[in-house]
């Protein structure tokens, strides 16, 4: 017995998706429009704003910083997050149960409070270099994603395979690299990608830690937007949306996007 969904609900859903995707189409229109303000009805098209991105050095420089920070922060977080996720999944009895929650703390504590506290204690209190403080902040920010996503992969991993390798004489560290790691590869890739995009888009932590000479792309965009309206911002936004599309394609290939609804 299958009941039809009420037409009013379907109409509402269509409108909601229009609401969700419309603004992104507006950005695309704004980036391609040859008028500085997007007017209705639309005028001619141009790629001038895209070209403009590469003429504003603040954008190209912060793009590089953001990219390095996202790769570095995520790599650092994975490097310590994978062993932690492994320990949590493998040694359930030996570790206290609260430990799993410790790695979720960066989500629980408001990001902006974390940014402020890092600025106060590290950058200002200890005088740590800007880039190092940013790296620590971003590694913390993405740690929950690394531990949770890799952990989800490990929870469906059958540890008796690893035991089999060990009992046949394979050293434990080698069993980890040749047996465990290849089996959780999808989780690592997906976790890396989600963490990367989170770090790339971060505002609340970076806003306190960027300083003279060092800034990230979102912070630069924010500062630019507050001062004047420039369609170059729309062009940068379109580039960022391109990154999102690439990321979604990778997640779809590795885990399937339905993974995100679980």
């Amino acid at each position: 017995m299958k009941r039809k969904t009420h037409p009013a609900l379907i109409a509402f859903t269509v409108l909601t998706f229009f609401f969700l995707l419309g603004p992104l189409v507006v950005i695309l229109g704004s980036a391609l429009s040859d008028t500085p303000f997007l007017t209705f009805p639309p005028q001619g098209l141009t790629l001038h704003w895209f070209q403009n991105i590469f003429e504003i050095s603040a954008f190209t420089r912060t793009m590089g910083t953001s990219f390095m920070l996202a790769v570095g922060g995520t790599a650092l977080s994975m490097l310590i997050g994978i062993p932690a996720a492994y320990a949590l999944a493998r040694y359930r009895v030996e570790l206290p149960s609260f430990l799993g929650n410790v790695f979720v703390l960066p989500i629980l504590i408001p990001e902006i409070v974390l940014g402020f506290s890092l600025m106060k204690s590290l950058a200002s209190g200890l005088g740590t270099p800007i880039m190092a403080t940013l790296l620590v902040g971003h590694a913390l920010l993405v740690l929950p994603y690394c531990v949770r996503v890799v952990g989800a992969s490990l929870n469906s991993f059958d540890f008796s395979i690893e035991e089999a390798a060990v009992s046949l004489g394979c050293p434990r560290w080698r069993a980890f690299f040749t047996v465990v790691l290849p089996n959780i590869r999808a989780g690592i890739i997906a976790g890396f990608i989600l963490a990367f995009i989170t770090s790339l888009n971060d505002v609340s932590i970076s806003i306190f830690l960027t300083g003279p000479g060092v800034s990230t792309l979102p912070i630069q965009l924010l500062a630019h937007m507050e001062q004047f309206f420039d369609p170059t911002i729309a062009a940068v936004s379109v580039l960022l949306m391109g990154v999102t599309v690439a990321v979604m394609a990778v997640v779809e290939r590795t885990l399937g996007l339905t993974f995100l609804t679980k």
Partner: protein
Amino acid sequence: MSHRMQAWLLAAPATLLVFVFLGLPVLSTLAMTFADPKGPLASYAAFFNSGFRMTVLWRTMEVALTTTILSVGIGFVVAWVVARAPSRLKSLLIIAAVFPLLTGVVVRAFAWLVILGKNGILNSFLLWIGAITEPLSMLYTQGSVIVAMVYLFVPLMILTLVGVLEGIPQDLTDAAASLGATPAAAFRQVVLPMAVPGLIVGSVLVFTGSFTSYATPQLLGGERQMMMGTFLYQRAMVTFDWLGASTIAAVMVVVTLATVLLMSRLARKLNPVAG
């Protein structure tokens, strides 16, 4: 080496990162609020006695609560339709919800600047069709902040609820119907109670997310619609009042943790399965 030792060694680097670079700095911020030279609770007295600070707190509460209610309403209906859509269409709709979610907050706030601005596309459209003769000022109002926040959080709500609603077997509503329940009664007595845990998780995410947001209120609300996040930044980086900023941070932490704890208790109480 014992198993316990091994386990701790593997978990140690990540645990240390959290304790040293999150635990200590945040605790030091919280400790600072009690170190006011005027007395241990003076900074809180100053916060709760200041009309301006309380206005910011209540405004933030109001915006976060409105955003949560709207996101739950919209998200529930859409998730319901998406969960029952044929599988090809369903994956397409999920992709359409994930895409904005993975796009950065700055980009998404910028879209609303382009739409709602004085020279924005909405004004331009309304002038063109002759509905208005003068451009409306829609930015820097509570409304513009709420619209952009709902925009920010509806995808999150949809994705959370699709997972939950998909898990409710059709057989259950069919059984209710065959036992004489009207569709409305089946929805209220079967579907809704099973969706409660998901609704609570989603609401907590949206409420805490909007309560602590920075970029959206900064761009769409500006000085006039200051919220806790923008207020904290202003105190810390513009007026360099770190004690004041720490007090704002402490209030944010308390509200966030209290919401999470209360709602997870509520979830446990209402969950028909776990009891």
